[in-house]
């Protein structure tokens, strides 16, 4: 587990997709094998700078995501490193069988980069707000699943992908959110990051919920509760050692994610604990429902993906110890 203990502050507000776009451009300069494919969402995915800088390494696929996944798989044959880009919904559920057979089962070195994940997509509503993508992807053998928490971490995660062999699902979002991860914290795929040390309860958070977990931890401290905040950016393979090390100390856990309760981070943590170190868990997630239109912060509040719910979940789980 990486350790990054400090009092985190908001550096600025930025969208995670822009972190992806900046890193993709850098990768373009660093590695000529990196190619990018996009299904008619180049601006939304922030792939436009890569497309302009490397027009012969950018493939505009049109609104044909199934074909995009197959072409990406084919491009690996001959040594290219394809990064596909579209919304998370169209990167997973829409093309599940193409990913399953042509990429995961065939073990192709394709990087599936998915923006606009979760409720924070906002006004477009439930058709686009996929909350099942982490579950879909983590079930696939050979697949690595990464869900970074802010702009800086998304950038670091993207940069890490080019040298990491095999299929990866990288999930990020649309709106501007607190950017707080100092750039000097190393990013290692598969290694959780301890953000705040505590003794009473472990809070495991991923994606946009990490900042909210830090806020919750401050509030809990004011109530005299010592909480440990751990950033799980890699959902699969999950950092089992980090989870066990923390819960061995705190004896209970809260999970927090912008995802459906079935198949997300909560499931993964529960699986580790139930097999290795049974302990009470509370899960902050979307409870078996689709989303709806609204502003990102309104949706996060309505569906309980917010700081107060993390605090309440921590209090509940403490009672169950």
């Amino acid at each position, binding site marked *: 587990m990486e350790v990054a203990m400090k009092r985190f502050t908001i550096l600025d507000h930025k969208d995670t997709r822009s972190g992806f776009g900046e890193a993709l451009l850098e990768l373009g300069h660093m590695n000529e094998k990196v190619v990018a494919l996009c299904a008619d969402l180049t601006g939304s995915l922030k792939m436009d700078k890569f497309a302009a800088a490397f027009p012969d390494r950018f493939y505009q696929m049109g609104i044909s995501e*199934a074909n995009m996944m197959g072409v990406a*798989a084919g491009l*690996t*044959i001959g040594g290219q490193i394809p990064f596909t880009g579209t919304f998370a919904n169209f990167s997973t559920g829409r093309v599940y069988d193409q990913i399953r057979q042509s990429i995961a089962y065939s073990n192709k070195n394709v990087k599936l980069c998915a923006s606009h994940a979760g409720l924070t997509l906002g006004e477009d509503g439930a058709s686009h707000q996929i909350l099942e993508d982490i579950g879909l992807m983590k079930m696939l053998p050979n697949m690595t699943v990464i869900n970074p928490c802010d702009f800086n971490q998304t950038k670091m995660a993207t940069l890490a992908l080019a040298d990491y062999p095999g299929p990866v699902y990288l999930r990020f979002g649309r709106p501007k959110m607190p950017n707080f991860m100092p750039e000097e914290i190393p990013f290692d795929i598969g290694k959780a990051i301890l953000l705040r040390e505590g003794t009473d309860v472990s809070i495991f958070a991923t994606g946009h919920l990490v900042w909210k977990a830090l806020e919750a931890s401050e509030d809990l401290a004011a109530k005299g509760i010592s909480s440990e905040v751990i950033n799980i950016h890699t959902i699969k393979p999950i950092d089992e050692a980090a989870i066990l090390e923390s819960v061995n100390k705190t004896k209970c856990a809260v999970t927090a994610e912008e995802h459906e309760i079935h198949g997300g981070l909560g499931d993964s943590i529960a699986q580790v604990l139930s097999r290795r170190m049974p302990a009470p868990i509370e899960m902050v997630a979307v409870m078996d429902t689709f989303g709806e239109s609204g502003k990102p912060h309104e949706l996060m509040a309505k569906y309980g993906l917010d700081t107060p719910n993390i605090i309440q979940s921590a209090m509940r789980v403490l009672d169950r110890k």
Partner: protein
Amino acid sequence: MPTTKDLERIASQVRRDIIRMTNQARSGHPGGSLGCVEYFVALFFHILRHDPGHFDMDGRGQDVFFLSNGHITPVYYSVLARSGYFELSELKTFRKIDSRLQGHPATTEGLPGIRIATGSLGQGLSVAIGAALSKKRNGDDHLVYCLMGDGELGEGQIWEAAMYAAHNKVDNLIATVDYNRQQIDGSTDEVLGLGDLRAKWEAFGWKVLEMDGNDMGSVLGAMKVAREGCGKGVPVMMLMSTEMGYGIDFMVGTHLWHGVPPNDEQAEDALGQLKETLGDY
């Protein structure tokens, strides 16, 4: 350079392999496999510029082939083995536990000759296009071949791929449709009519050629024309008329042997119709 007669002799042996493999596995897909024997034999023993003894995944400096209708593994594995990708004796492991010869092609077991898993239909053409683009990026002027079934054309992804390849001038690719007019539930006319396939592919911007897939001379001639049609800014589609089950009198021309193996008695009958030219595995 093998003559047409040489290739026909190989074809007879490959048909024996198909019958014996599906009979011994008590499963598999003999019908489509038998119909595509001339195509596979012509490709692997004459057309492909490849090095079967030195297979690698990237296939640089070689022509590469993708089988989109992955269920016809009996013919695929037979020609791979007989052209030198792996030991002939391995054919007897087809569809058995711990075998590299999975029911549908797979890369996980590392079988030489296989570069993508297929079986779930409609995906091979996209992969072939990607491999063709990769060749262009690598400055490799070798070609990419892809075989699809005709029933498989019901999959929408194929038409996404068709649009993409024409729009982007993927002209180092020769796709072929096994036009046997049969699918699992009946004839393509009954199940989901294909309409005018030539007109469809032409409307999508492809150069369309036709051949009789059960006539070795026709296959060799037409595939030569197809190769000469590459590099001209348009992808090439070969509509290959075949008969499902070709070569066995009680199997030919029907969808009923799509996924049904011959029993011992039927296998004996079938083998009696096919000359053992190169020795059974």
